[in-house]
């Protein structure tokens, strides 16, 4: 215990990687330029808005007050945009610069752990972000001085901005380790934010709408699924989430979610930096399961808290609640499914399934881990729906079964694609492209739904589409599951043949490297 405490103090206080980064940040001429540009843009935006808002306001005090509130909101909105832009740059630069200078090899030849390095980098970037926010304080303070906002609102707003910055920064770190490029990291972060934002918006907005629809806005409680999304916190200010009968302020929930998300993302970065089976990979997988369990619990709590919809809408809601949360899991599966045959990963020597590797990070563990993730989300949600009589008993099995079959298909495609690639990055891209291509192509029929095409044909395109869980009968759902399982089986069969062929080629008779002179 004493050793562990000492190690934590060493990591979080006086971290050499963090101190070095901070020194560089403060001395670099580039930093001075960035800060100058950031402040100039902020001042210009604030002045332009202040001028236009005040000049358009009438002379009444209430109108002026409202205009000043608008000014404050515009400045804060702009700050949010800046933070979302700057945070990935800071995160990317912290990691990519180490690769560019090749100094990362020197750091990892020392006894410093991956955690020590990543936490140091992360804290230094976070401190830089806090400094940038602090520098903007005089501009937001204008809003307070003129009566557009209170100090309490400003402090709360800055805390939310820090939360958002902390998450975006953490998103950038595993991406930067994988891409080792500034541009690709920032693009990757934007893609993740769009996907994550879309999913969070759909999931939370739907449950919120259902709730407020039922309660007619007469409550200060919000569903946990909404409360746990840190990016929604500014909109849910003043609301709380019921834990049992105790209303917990929303910012506490969002703060805990932020810490959990940051931890999992940093573990992801650590896992990408270390070899297969490392402590970081195992910890990432365990934390992933905990996070998914909490996610399921929040869905359960949300379903419990929303009023019952009319029977006619129940199937749609059931589909959404069971299968929508699977979408992020399917994206994770695309990453788990892919592997490469080169470097130290020795993936070709791996088996199809090995329960001991479920937390280890080898492909033989992907099948087990992927199925656990899907089962956790799909079955717990289905059981939740059954508990509130949304679905029938048989559907408890059938809806998750579709999720498991779809997951198996993704893993099968990964098994088929991976032996063809040296590097895991190449196979990962191909798996994502193959799965997305299959899904998008199969959804073409959806586009014709509303343009007067033959109703039978269009409905057939939707109802017979195995990539959509929609089905108006159990037989149709069974048929879809069967199609997915056949695709998965074929992919596994041909993938395994390919893998054995490559294994013999690469490991059967090793040859020495050709000398270069």
């Amino acid at each position, binding site marked *: 215990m004493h050793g562990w405490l000492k190690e934590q103090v060493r990591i979080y206080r006086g971290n050499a990687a963090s101190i070095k980064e901070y020194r*560089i940040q403060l001395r*670099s001429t580039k930093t001075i330029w960035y800060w100058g540009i950031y402040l100039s843009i902020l001042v210009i935006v604030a002045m332009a808005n202040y001028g236009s808002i005040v000049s358009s306001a009438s002379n009444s005090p209430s109108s002026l007050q409202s205009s000043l509130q608008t000014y404050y909101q515009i400045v804060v909105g702009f700050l949010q945009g800046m933070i979302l832009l700057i945070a990935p740059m800071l995160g990317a630069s912290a990691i990519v610069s180490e690769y560019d200078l090749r100094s990362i090899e*020197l750091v990892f030849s020392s006894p410093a752990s991956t955690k020590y390095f990543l936490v140091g980098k992360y804290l230094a970037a976070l401190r830089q972000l806090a400094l940038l926010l602090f520098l903007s304080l005089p501009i937001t303070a204008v809003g307070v001085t003129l009566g557009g906002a209170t100090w309490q609102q400003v402090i709360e707003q800055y805390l939310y901005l820090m939360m958002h910055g902390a998450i975006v920064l953490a998103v950038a770190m595993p991406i930067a380790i994988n891409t080792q490029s500034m541009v690709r990291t920032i693009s990757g972060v934007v893609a993740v934010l769009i996907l994550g934002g879309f999913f969070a918006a759909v999931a939370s907005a739907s449950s919120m709408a259902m709730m407020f629809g039922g309660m007619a806005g007469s409550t200060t409680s919000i569903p946990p699924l909404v409360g746990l999304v840190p990016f929604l916190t500014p909109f849910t200010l003043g609301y709380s989430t019921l834990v049992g009968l105790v209303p917990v302020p929303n910012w506490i929930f969002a703060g805990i979610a932020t810490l959990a998300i940051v931890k999992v993302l940093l573990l992801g970065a650590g896992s990408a930096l270390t070899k297969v089976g490392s402590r970081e990979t195992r910890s990432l997988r365990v934390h992933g399961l905990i996070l998914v369990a909490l996610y399921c619990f929040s869905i359960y709590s949300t379903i419990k808290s929303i009023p019952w919809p009319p029977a006619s809408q129940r199937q749609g809601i059931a589909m959404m609640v069971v299968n929508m949360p699977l979408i992020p899991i399917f994206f994770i599966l695309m990453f788990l499914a892919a592997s490469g045959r*080169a470097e130290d990963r020795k993936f070709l020597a791996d088996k199809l399934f090995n329960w001991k590797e479920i937390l280890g990070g080898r492909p033989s563990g992907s099948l087990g881990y992927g199925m656990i993730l899907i089962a956790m989300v799909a079955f717990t949600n289905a059981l939740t729906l059954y508990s509130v009589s949304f679905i029938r008993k048989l559907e408890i099995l059938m809806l998750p079964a579709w999720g498991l079959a779809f997951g198996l298909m993704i893993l099968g495609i990964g098994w088929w694609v991976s032996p063809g690639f040296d590097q895991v990055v190449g196979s990962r891209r191909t798996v994502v492209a193959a799965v997305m291509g299959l899904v998008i192509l199969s959804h073409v029929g959806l586009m014709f739904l509303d343009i007067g095409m033959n109703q039978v044909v269009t409905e057939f395109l939707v109802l017979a589409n195995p990539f959509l869980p929609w089905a108006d009968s159990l037989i149709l759902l069974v048929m879809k599951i069967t199609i997915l399982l056949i695709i998965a089986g074929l992919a596994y069969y041909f993938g395994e043949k390919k893998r054995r062929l490559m294994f013999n080629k690469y490991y059967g008779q090793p*040859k020495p490297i050709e000398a270069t002179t």
Partner: protein
Amino acid sequence: MLEVKSLTKRYGQFEAVTSVDFALEPGEIMGFIGSNGAGKTTTIKMLATLLEPTHGTALLNGRPLDGNDLEIRKQIGYMPDFFGLYEDIKVWEYLDMFATLYGVEVNDRPRVIDEVLELTDLGFKKQAFARSLSRGMQQRLCLARCLVHNPTMLLLDEPASGLDPRARAELKELIGELGRMGKIVIVSSHILPELADFSTVVGIIERGQMLAFGKVNDVVRSLTPAKKIQVKLLDRGAEASMFLHSKEHVSGTQFLNPNEFRFDFTGTLEDQHALLKAMIDAGFPIIEFMDEEADLEDLFMQVTKGALN
């Protein structure tokens, strides 16, 4: 003591390093010779715990050099063939950072930094920015970085590449000093004269295979059964050559000028003495009769001849 047993690194289809074995005692400096791509850097990275061997082990004072054992890295000083220096960071800050990473106590750090700067003759640059140093100084700073935690073993990968002759001479002196301090030093290079002066042990690697290993003289002796003897006379060079060819253990005469030639000799020291006596007795006007020392370059060319072809 460093013991390397069957160290192998395989990348899919090919083996970068094939079953390398050697052992080094404290104070020994190993010149690790090989052409580009021979497997020197891969071997060094495995010893630095940065790469996991496919097979085999390496033990430093009985403890395995395993990447999962972070503590073992405190016994290793690794200097790659690049500097990896940060921008906008001072010499002492750079060393302070690595001293912290290696777990040197806060109170000891200033003293340790001063000591390694003094050893590497960089004390006067303590407050300078690392990137502003000359290439030779940057190289010495990197060596200082390897020394902040007082390691048992130093792994120096191509330390003298790109240095001017003066910086090279200084570096050689410094490496010699580290050997005298009792450290195990492995210095890799493909520029042979760099290593010849200070290496006590030599390892020649080609296509991932250790072709020769041992003390420089032992390796020379084992690999060159026929030594070359050079003879210089006042005159009668051709006659002396014919005379020698009539004797045992002599072959392959090569004239350098009419009265000077070298020949291959496979006999013992006693045979060599008898041969010289016979020439003198025969009245040949000998000015010089001496062994030609095989240097590392000759040795390398001889050993790798088969591997490179």
